[in-house]
């Protein structure tokens, strides 16, 4: 456990040392959402109909970018092999890395999202729900994404393959996330979607590290 903490701290140090890398996801999110908002007719009705879905799509794309480099650096500079030899169990290692990455890259995005929600004229409760669903959702996306990152490590055509692999796994999160926000927006309730989102998040945070660990062993061959 303490070892996982050490790794977690190292990852955080790396994030702090190169904040630009971590924040690029945030930047991409803001860019993507703003450009979308700009590219359409700024009618409140239209914006409101679009908002939840568009913001969630942007968050999903940013997570895809976050996840792409989860193990890349460690693999390239030989750290991954050393980690395999360390007494730290591999799933714990994956969890520590994913969590640090989530904190560094996805959390800022979550915190900023209400501002972007304003851009899309989201209503009060939807504005509150947006960061909540995004927090749960991006956690699930990053952890599930770690499986894809581990599977495609060092492969030709990595990034395309990554998105192809993750697409089917990401769609449910996207659907329930966007539905929840849209539900809050229209006042027709969001509890069902939110609890499914929470379940997805819980399951992926717990089980994805084991799957990723198995895939990482393969990648080091």
């Amino acid at each position, binding site marked *: 456990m303490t070892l996982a903490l050490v790794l977690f701290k190292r990852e955080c140090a790396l994030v702090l040392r190169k904040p630009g890398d971590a924040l690029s996801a945030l930047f991409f999110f803001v860019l993507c959402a703003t450009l979308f908002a700009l590219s359409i007719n700024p009618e409140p009705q239209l914006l409101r109909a679009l908002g939840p879905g568009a913001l969630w799509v942007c968050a999903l794309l940013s997570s895809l970018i976050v996840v792409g480099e989860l193990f890349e650096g460690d693999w390239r500079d030989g750290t991954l092999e050393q980690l395999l030899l360390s007494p730290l169990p591999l799933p714990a290692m994956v969890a520590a890395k994913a969590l640090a990455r989530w904190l560094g890259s996805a959390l800022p995005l979550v915190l900023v999202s209400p501002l972007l929600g304003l851009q899309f004229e989201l209503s009060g409760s939807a504005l509150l729900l947006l960061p909540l669903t995004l927090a749960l959702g991006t956690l699930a996306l990053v952890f599930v994404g770690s499986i894809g990152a581990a599977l495609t490590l060092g492969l030709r055509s990595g990034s395309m393959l990554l998105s192809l692999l993750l697409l089917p796994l990401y769609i449910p999160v996207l659907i329930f996330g966007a539905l929840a926000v849209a539900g809050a927006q229209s006042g027709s309730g969001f509890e*069902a979607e939110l609890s499914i989102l929470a379940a997805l998040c819980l399951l992926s945070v717990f089980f994805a590290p084991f799957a990723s660990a198995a895939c990482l062993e393969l990648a080091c061959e």
Partner: protein
Amino acid sequence: MHPQRKKRLLLVVAALAVIGIASALILNAFRSNLVFFHTPTEVATKQVATDRTLRIGGLVVPGSIERSAGGLQVSFAVSDKVHSVPVRYQGILPDLFNEGKGTVVQGVLGADGVFQASQVLAKHDENYMPPEAADALERAGQTVVQP
């Protein structure tokens, strides 16, 4: 207990707990509404917002279909046997659309309480039988069950 064993046991317990919580959450979700379409009751009791596109599903109320002169403009009512919502639609209807049959309409609920549909879908049930059998059933007083 051997520390290795203990760890493993702990892990299994945690896994079971996670699965348990997750299934509780999911079951909770199915008890509330998670839908492709809303029912007329939900619309009537204002459980859904009215200023955005939504879908309403139910049965077309028998005798409610009125076609305008051109034949392209239709109005009918959709009901779930408790409440019904009047619907206006301009366009081509699917073949299976008929009185007493299932339908799903997509559109916006107007201020006048009339639902302005932009798309009308037919929803049929899982029964398949020859027409004679359906007639026989009907004569026997059994209506074909709708979902």
